[in-house]
């Protein structure tokens, strides 16, 4: 594996679970013994608020919400194994900057038709980038806030596959612990053997396989 891997969690749709996934995934890599930097590229600054709430004790967080993200990131990313970018909820230059910085783009999608349709723009940007860079960044969908065993869930997977990007088999589900832990500046690892923690660990491990680390 190369020195560091930059993962951008991106979707223009607000509420798709970007910050929840970015913060929990960052903590999951810390628990894996990795050196992790969380980059908040959303001007709303939710990841920075979360970091302030935990007094910066889980993972270092920096706010880089300018189009200069690719260059700024080079300046601060030395020595980290994993860099997780919490993306902005828009398809504009900030998303483009995150895509240019990333080795992997994870696109969280709630199991709703609106989220599936809203993903079209970010998919378009990723594919446009892949054409000029010989396939970088790799990209995949991650179903977030899934409700187990619903017909819509299966339909959503089918529709996402129409975009011709892989869909992670791991996912997050609708669980109160995601928002409760965030409100205290924590992660789902407050209950380290709970189902939400196991979901995030599964995402981390699938991501590692996706980038070829294991």
């Amino acid at each position, binding site marked *: 594996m190369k020195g560091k891997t930059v993962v951008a969690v991106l979707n223009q749709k607000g509420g798709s679970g970007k910050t929840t996934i970015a913060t929990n995934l960052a903590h999951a890599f810390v628990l894996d013994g990795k050196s992790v930097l969380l980059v908040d590229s959303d001007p709303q600054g939710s990841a920075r608020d979360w970091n302030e709430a935990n007094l910066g004790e889980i993972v270092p967080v920096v706010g880089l919400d300018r*189009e200069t993200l690719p260059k700024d990131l080079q300046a601060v990313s030395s020595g980290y194994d994993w860099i997780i970018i919490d993306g902005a909820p*828009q*398809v*504009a*230059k900030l*998303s*483009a*900057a995150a*895509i*240019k910085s990333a080795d992997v783009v994870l696109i969280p999608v709630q199991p709703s*038709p609106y989220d*599936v*349709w809203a*993903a*079209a*723009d970010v*998919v*378009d*940007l*990723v594919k*446009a*980038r892949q*054409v*000029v860079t010989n396939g970088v960044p790799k990209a995949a969908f991650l179903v977030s806030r899934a409700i187990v065993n619903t017909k*819509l869930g299966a*339909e*959503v997977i*089918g*529709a*996402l596959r*129409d*975009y011709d990007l892989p869909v992670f088999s791991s996912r997050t589900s609708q669980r109160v612990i995601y928002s409760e832990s965030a409100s205290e500046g924590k992660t789902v690892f407050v209950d380290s053997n709970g189902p939400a923690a196991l979901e995030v660990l599964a995402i981390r491990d699938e991501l590692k396989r996706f980038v070829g680390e294991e």
Partner: protein
Amino acid sequence: MSLRAKKSDRSHEGKQEALKTVTQGEMKRLNLLVEKTKFIKFKQKATAEDLSMSEVINQMIDAYLSK
């Protein structure tokens, strides 16, 4: 009817800007010396045509390279 992915729509302005950014390679700064009055005329004309000076220079470079 089953749920389907949405077809790409490249029409809105923010997306066009973003597409331009992601397909751009690494940028290098070009410094050049221009006589002052020429610089002022160049800047005024580009502004009047709603173009940046960089856009005009890039068009010139593209035309030169395609010869």
